[in-house]
């Protein structure tokens, strides 16, 4: 019988939540790395017991952790992230040039086929690769040295590479998303990258249709259709059908199209989930109601999913890496909030229950579906 493992990164440690396929009774393990910010925990698709975790601290810097027993024990591995060559500059908040400085790992994306290979998206924006299980890291400098990069400027959360998607049909193609530069694509396994932001429109930047400068919050892909990407931008929910060559808005009838998370149903490539957040100045759910919105039409038409979620006096946020799906049928959907709740739906979003209610603020949620 299948099992589900939910990997949760929080502001004060990591937690592993596990259940059988019923997804009704959960075992909670943790906190691992108590007291540390855990930006992301993710398992290798090629070996589900191999987990990677990004452990960070404003005091003590970056630590990388690896587990070979599904999170029971961990080993600190390599934490040296050195930019290739002499790092250049990006634009600072006041418009001045600012040297690239490594701050932390936001996102880990293990290879689809090799447990020893993992990519790391970091702040200040760059992508690193390890082929020895996280022991050593080397930058793929083609992204940071891309010709538009001197003009990249950080969003409020920093100049972070927060999403990496690997095309399951073509290992040479990857997508990376940077706040607040935009989406970039490589077709040569990370050697060279180019911006793919045509169709994005951001009214808060000087040129709303600029090639870069768009505050992309998250992108998502269904593995069966890697040319179709869904995006939650700062404002606007977007979609591309041609691998990012062009984007169109699919916000449709959402009550607000600001938000952070977006994900795709595991078995229905045109079923998409977002959680609208009130605005860029009010980082909490709209109208005091925690509502997941689901589109079964690939966007434009959205329905509110509220069963089991608080519908009054709720003012939590849901951050960009804090939603994930399992691959059972019916599909399970999971998300974590700034209030420390991790909600699960075992029926594609129709009904929700909290797995846990009182964790530290949740930074990331990943799900493993285990045979």
């Amino acid at each position: 019988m299948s099992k589900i493992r939910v990997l949760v990164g929080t502001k004060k440690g990591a937690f592993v939540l596990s259940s059988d396929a019923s997804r009704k009774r959960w075992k909670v393990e943790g906190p691992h790395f108590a007291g540390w910010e855990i930006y992301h925990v993710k398992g290798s698709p090629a070996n589900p017991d191999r987990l990677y975790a990004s452990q960070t601290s404003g005091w003590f810097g970056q630590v990388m952790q690896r587990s070979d027993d599904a999170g029971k024990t961990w080993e600190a591995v390599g934490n040296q992230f050195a930019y290739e060559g002499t790092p250049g500059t990006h634009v600072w908040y006041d418009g001045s040039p600012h040297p690239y400085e490594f701050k932390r790992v936001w996102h880990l994306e293990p290879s689809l086929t090799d447990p020893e290979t993992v990519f790391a998206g970091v702040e200040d924006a760059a992508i690193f690769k390890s082929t020895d299980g996280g022991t050593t890291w080397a930058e793929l400098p083609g992204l940071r040295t891309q010709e538009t990069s001197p003009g990249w400027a950080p969003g409020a959360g920093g100049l972070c590479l927060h999403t990496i998607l690997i095309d399951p049909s073509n290992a040479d193609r990857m997508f990376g998303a940077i706040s607040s530069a935009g989406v970039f694509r490589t077709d040569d396994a990370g050697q060279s990258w180019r911006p793919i932001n045509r169709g994005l429109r951001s009214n808060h930047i000087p040129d709303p249709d600029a090639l870069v400068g768009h505050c992309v919050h998250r992108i998502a892909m269904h593995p069966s259709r890697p040319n179709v990407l869904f995006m939650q931008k700062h404002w606007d929910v977007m979609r591309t059908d041609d691998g990012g060559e062009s984007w169109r808005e699919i916000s449709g009838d959402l009550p607000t199209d600001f938000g952070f998370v977006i994900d795709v149903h595991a078995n229905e490539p045109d079923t998409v989930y977002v959680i609208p957040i009130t605005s860029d100045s009010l980082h909490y759910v709209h109208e005091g109601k925690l509502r997941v919105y689901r589109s079964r039409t690939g966007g434009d038409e959205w329905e509110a999913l509220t069963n089991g979620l608080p519908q009054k006096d709720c003012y939590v946020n849901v951050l960009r890496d804090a939603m994930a799906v399992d691959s059972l049928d019916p599909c399970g959907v999971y998300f974590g909030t700034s209030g420390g709740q991790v909600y699960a739906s075992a029926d594609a979003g129709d009904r929700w229950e909290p797995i846990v209610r009182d964790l530290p603020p949740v930074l990331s949620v990943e799900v493993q579906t285990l045979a």
Partner: protein
Amino acid sequence: MIRVVLPANLQTLAGVGRVVELDVASPVTQRSVLDVLEGNHPALRGTIRDMDTKRRRPMLRFFACEEDLSDASPDDPLPDAVASGSEPLLIIGAIAGG
């Protein structure tokens, strides 16, 4: 033996208690103590001082014998009481947050 007192989060990371005892050859300096500490506990590399420059991370400070040694040269001898093991070298994280 040299005694080093670690902040709580580094105790968790290294899997040690509050006080770590180290066998450090003379001369006993910040650099020699931290070299041995990181050698004995590799998980601490990069968490107290920058991996490349070896400069103290900005939100940590070093104290011993009621003196703030944070801005002293890493190659200055530490106080005799630290070298003899009667007083510890304190690594302290900034008090911040809420």
